[in-house]
């Protein structure tokens, strides 16, 4: 990696780390959502560093544009302010069990990553959007169609779930 790339990697790592800490620990859900959006922007920067500008664009479009707005609606529909749903201290047992549940995969996967490194190239592979489109409409046509069916069913299900009969 070049020096600038290293600096950029460090900055994005800091953005991701601070955003995820805010998203997980904040007692106000609105702040947690701001933390999530910060993390998403950091991951989009990581995609840019990996020479995949299309993925970074999709990250901004889908996650920050669509998913965050959906979560914002969910926040607005519940008691998200400080002292609301997330207010009050959790019992100590929850913290201990939660830390244990987090440390187990962290230790295992971290050990695997550090001791069994895979042969990797230093410069990322370049993929054009045309190649991605050829893949979507060629070899991976079935998953492409399936994901559209899943999105359709999810939206229809969401409308059906929240449907209120008139006069009820």
């Amino acid at each position, binding site marked *: *990696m070049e020096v600038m790339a290293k600096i950029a990697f460090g900055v994005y790592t800091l953005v*991701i*780390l601070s955003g*995820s*800490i805010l*998203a*997980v*620990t904040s007692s106000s*859900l609105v702040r947690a959502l701001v933390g*999530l959006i910060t*993390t998403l922007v950091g*991951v989009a920067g*990581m995609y840019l560093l*990996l*020479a995949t500008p299309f*993925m970074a664009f*999709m*990250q901004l479009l889908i*996650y920050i544009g669509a*998913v965050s707005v*959906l*979560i914002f*609606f*969910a926040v607005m*529909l*519940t008691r*998200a302010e400080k002292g*609301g*749903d*997330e207010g009050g201290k*959790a019992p100590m047992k929850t*913290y201990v*069990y*939660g*830390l244990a*549940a*987090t440390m187990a995969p*962290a230790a295992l*996967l*971290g050990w695997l*990553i*550090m001791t069994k*490194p*895979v*042969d*990797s*190239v*230093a410069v990322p*592979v370049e*993929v054009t959007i045309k190649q*991605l489109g050829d893949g979507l409409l060629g070899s991976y046509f079935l*998953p492409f169609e399936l*994901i559209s069916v*899943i*999105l359709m069913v*999810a*939206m229809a299900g*969401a409308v059906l*779930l*929240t449907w209120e009969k008139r006069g009820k």
Partner: protein
Amino acid sequence: MSALTLYQIVALMLLCAGLFGLTQRRSLVGMLISVELMLNGAGLSMVAAAQLTDFSAVLGQLGTLFVMGLAAAEATLVLAMIVVVARRFKSAKTSDITTLKE
């Protein structure tokens, strides 16, 4: 330390933050935010692994695109469920909606 290892460590960090949040959050919206963190870690790990090894880069990027699509579908459904739960129980706290325990 290779570049791939660094990216995988960041992805692992996101996964762990999401897991910890999932165990700590006391409302459905907070759990949804944590799940999104975990899905982002998975996407970052997949793109990094596909871009920096001999593995097919197109397949890695398309896989991450599918993860994003699934995340959007999941967020839609969870929003609908939160609306229904909040309407019925007047709260989205997980401790308020466990009726089987009583």
